[in-house]
């Protein structure tokens, strides 16, 4: 296996020594580019009190290419689809090599705090969200209780 770039080692160390509140990220024993991630649902959001599991993978071209991040826990959110894929600009066109694992995960956490149904990935959820926001938020709460323990 090719040696791990110094940057990835530094980032991993800092994630452990100086963790982001409400976020954990642990590299897999067999593959130090693969991280098991948990994100706590932000307070006063429909995801409050939920703990969501995600996977994060650093491609060979990282940091020239964005990390691949996906929700493993089922979640009802207009910008996250059935497969857990996330619609987030910094993961696609707005990626910059000055961003890091921690900043990306903070952006994901911020996305939970402010769903954006006008730029949807899960079209059916976004439609629900626009049609009846209260109902959609109630459903998001319900799913959080059911799946994000």
């Amino acid at each position, binding site marked *: 296996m090719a040696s791990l770039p110094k940057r990835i080692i530094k980032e991993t160390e800092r994630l452990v020594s100086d963790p982001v509140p409400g976020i954990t990220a642990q590299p897999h024993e067999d593959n130090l580019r693969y991280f098991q991630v948990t994100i706590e649902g932000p307070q006063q959001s429909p995801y409050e009190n939920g703990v969501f599991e995600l996977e994060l993978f650093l491609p060979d071209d990282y940091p*020239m290419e964005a990390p691949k991040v996906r929700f493993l826990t089922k979640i009802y959110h207009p910008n996250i689809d059935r497969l857990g894929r996330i619609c987030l600009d910094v993961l696609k066109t707005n990626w*910059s*090599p*000055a961003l890091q694992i921690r900043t990306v995960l903070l952006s994901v956490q911020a996305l939970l705090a402010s769903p954006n149904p006008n730029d949807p990935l899960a079209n059916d959820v976004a439609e629900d969200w626009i049609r009846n926001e209260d109902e959609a938020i109630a459903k998001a709460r319900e799913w959080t209780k059911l799946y994000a323990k």
Partner: protein
Amino acid sequence: MSTYEEEHNTSSNSNPRRDLRAQIRDLYQENGSSAALLQLLAQLIPESMQEELLNEKEGCPETFIDSLPRVNKRAMKRTDACSICCCSYLDDTHPLVVELPHCNHRFDLECVAVWLSKSRTCPLCRDDVLSHKPNVDVSNVELEEDWGMYG
């Protein structure tokens, strides 16, 4: 216009690959521009990948990257680090650090060169680095006798 095969009446055993090639050629000529063709071809691939293909940003020319001003070692502090590789510049006894025009953000040349070969934005502030090129060029021009002459 008839092809050799048609003229010589040998088209009965025509080559499917050649037919396909002809179709693509027709398509290309009908559309005229490669942008239109690209749009059309993009429709054949999954939506998630379309965006990537169509929005693929062009990088900076190599001449631009080569012309970035180098930062003097004495102007670097112990704690200054490249935000791409996260290493301190002074860890290296001969750091090769460059500064982007306008925003003045600094990076290891080796790191930022890879990024700028596929993007035009500063990794730290997303400034379009090429948009300021004329200004920078003017300030850097040395007054020589053959001023304004190239080649």
